């Protein structure tokens, strides 16, 4: 069967070339062979556990695939007929014990490493002044409640270098909170309260919802902005309240209705006078709306009246276009 050789050699060359190209692309840009560069202690310890598992599983991988390729090479038929049998070996008890016990030991080692890293991943370091923030997943935005009862949408502001505890909740469907650089994910499940934490150096970190939550699942991104303590204080002191109307419009309404209210997945609402009627708008935001072409989720079911008034004020100024007397739209 010598004629089989070229295919095999070709295959090995193709496989090696593909692996090399992929690996060099990934290594050159430091992307994709490990979880993203960790910026929070929990993410760093996760990365440590990841590397340990890479070590053990990598060794097993090269052992098994190496033996496979070696056996394919060494024991290929070379034109021996089908009637030629290999040695009729039915098994070997000692070998069976060896390849049962060694994997058990390896798994024990992995388990020990994981449990050793676990406390540093699961629990935040002791901190004198941790911050407690509630993260609420919604179709299709994230809402953050700060300790002083202010709120922001889609962008979470935190002071850099301080431990931040997140209480993760939801009211409509299941979402999953995930900022890869700041640790693993945790689901936001209606009817359940979950917790996670991080501690981030100054910077902006991106993530997005990791649990299918409906049509705009892919648009449910979140940013964490870690900034200096004074900047954070200023933000939750006044800026958050001052910009909440804009945040609500662009982070919640515009997803379906477009930045100018021109419509998209949802209908055109730029000239809909309901936009500027506080009571009517509140009714829709709190209870949702079932119309001719589709349904709007109760996106504002947890909003307070200040939020709704801020939205109306923003919309009145920036979005709403009362139909001109002539009746032409827009």
């Amino acid at each position, binding site marked *: 069967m010598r004629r089989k050789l070229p295919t095999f050699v070709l295959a090995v060359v193709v496989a090696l070339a593909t692996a090399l190209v992929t690996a060099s692309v990934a290594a050159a840009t430091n992307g994709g062979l490990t979880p993203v560069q960790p910026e929070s202690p929990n993410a760093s310890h996760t990365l440590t556990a990841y590397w340990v598992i890479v070590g053990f599983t990598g060794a097993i991988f090269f052992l098994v695939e190496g033996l496979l390729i070696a056996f*394919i090479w060494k024991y290929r038929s070379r034109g021996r007929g089908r009637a030629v049998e290999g040695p009729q070996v039915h098994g070997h008890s000692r070998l069976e014990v060896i390849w049962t016990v060694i994997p058990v030991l390896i798994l024990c080692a992995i388990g020990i490493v994981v449990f050793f890293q676990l406390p540093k991943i699961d629990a935040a370091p002791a901190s004198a002044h941790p911050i407690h923030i509630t993260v609420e997943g919604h179709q299709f935005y994230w809402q953050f409640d700060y300790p002083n009862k202010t709120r922001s949408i889609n962008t979470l502001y935190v002071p850099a270098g301080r431990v931040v505890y997140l209480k993760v909740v939801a009211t409509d469907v299941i979402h999953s909170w995930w900022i890869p650089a700041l640790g693993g994910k*945790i689901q936001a499940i209606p009817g359940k309260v979950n917790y996670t934490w991080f501690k981030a150096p100054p910077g902006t970190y991106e993530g*997005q919802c990791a649990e299918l939550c409906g049509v*705009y699942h892919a648009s449910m991104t979140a940013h964490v902005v870690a900034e200096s303590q004074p900047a954070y204080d200023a933000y939750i002191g006044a800026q958050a309240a001052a910009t909440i109307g804009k945040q609500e419009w662009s982070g919640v309404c515009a997803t379906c209705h477009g930045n100018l209210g021109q419509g998209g997945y949802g209908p055109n609402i730029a000239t809909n006078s309901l936009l500027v009627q506080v009571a009517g708008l509140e009714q829709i935001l709190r209870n949702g709306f079932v119309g001719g072409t589709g349904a709007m989720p109760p996106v504002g079911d947890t909003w307070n009246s200040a939020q709704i008034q801020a939205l109306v004020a923003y919309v009145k100024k920036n979005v709403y276009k009362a139909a001109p007397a002539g009746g032409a739209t827009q």
Partner: protein
Amino acid sequence: MATRSEAVYPVGWKSGRVASWLVTVDHKRIGIMYIATSIFFFALGGLLAILMRAQLAGPGEHFLTKNSYNEVMTMHGTTMIFLVVVPIMAGFGNFLVPLMIGARDMAFPRLNALSYWLFLLGGLVLWLSWFSKGGAAHAGWWSYPTLSEAMPWASPGHGQDYWILAIHILTLSSIFGAINFIVTIHNMRTAGMTWMRMPLFVWAMETYSILLILAMPAISAAVTLLLLDRNFGTHFFIPGHGGSLLLYQHMFWFFGHPEVYIMVLPAFGMISEILPVFSRKPIFGYKAVAFSTLAIAFFSMLVWAHHMFTTGLGLGLDGFFMISSMVIAVPTGIKIFNWLATTWRGNLIFDSPLLFSFGFLALFTFGGLTGIFLAAFPVDWQLNDSYFIVAHFHYVAFGGIVFALFAGLYYWWPKMFGRMLDERLAKLNFWLMFIGFNMTFLPMHMLGLLGMPRRVYTYHHGGLWAVYNGISTAGGVLTAIGVAVFVANIWITHGLRKGARVGNDPWMADTLEWYTTSPPPPHNFDSVPYVTSARPLRDLRRRLAEDAT
């Protein structure tokens, strides 16, 4: 039944070319219908996969709408699991189990036909749901509430109800089939075939059947509660009224993880049949391979919540399910090492079944090892629900199961139809699929590590995200061409009648199905030799050789 053999192949309208298939209770014909129907759904599910890859080929594309992406993604998963892998295993089991154990047919031929027709009905219900009000189900193949509930902002259309109905029908089909397999295997083995002389594929089908009976009721119950929630005002999964979303996840995965092994154990069984024949050696460690099948099945019932590490179960449960999940790696490793040892010092005949078996071994090993990352729950918190997990389970489900299925198709094709598929096309099929598969799914690991969540209809990052997604889409096309070569091969072999006719035993195999003609007659065997080992055909060849000298 057994005394009225004329009822199986009656005269008159029932013996027509089409009608004889419609009324058949012959396990071989039912098996072939199962396999053909599954391959048809495999093509449909593959088409959906290509649609998804087209949408994700570059950032911010508009090939599919958001809604249709979610429908396509849900239907791809549901189709591949419920309409392809589980039933095609039932198809192979149907064709092979009675032949392998030297029986005349399955224990309950009519129940067997019912299983098949229920499977087809379930598939039609699922696929016709595209045309229902509101389109097909779009909550993912897990159908997690509350997204799958009837609220106007969740899944108000009828697609989800048809999905539930299809699952109910397919569950019945699977359970009837499983009962049939168990009764057949326990009662109808030929003289001399003790449990330790049974082909390993039959061991796998026995275990597959037990797992189906244990796991299927869990999903039936879960989707029944969902159906009641959606249509009859109950609140099992509506938290505002005291329902629990985690309850559904527990019920679903109590079925969902054994389901993985329901799909993969018969694939293991095929590999355990094929490797020895093409290595010209007995399986290494028959008992280890057989008992590790049972061990995997047992532990598979104890690991379900490793799908739920990110739901906040608490460290106690997380720890338990991490350990139980890692334990499964041990019997799986035993199988891999025994398979490797089977090829050691063999006379490896590189026909397509062996090629696909080695493909299985290489890819399944990789998929198994990435599973260790996901079992380690703090690492899973980072990787779960990302593209890493999509890559992981496709290495198991496609690289593992589908490659084993192709090995099985090429191996048993001559027995089923009496003609050999073209070897050169078979090898082309393998290389296209092997390279295409790795191009499709290897980059997905990197995408997940970069932070791309699963089930997103688009993404806005350029750079590596776009590069990896582009490679993945190109690989998907290559894989599809590989599958098309297989279809062309069938056409050339049978449509153009180019395939060489074969005798009883073209591969010089070990097990009883090769004792009878290819294809076997309706009654399978004129006589069955007394079985004295796990390799009755080899024993026979040796006796003949001894008699000749």
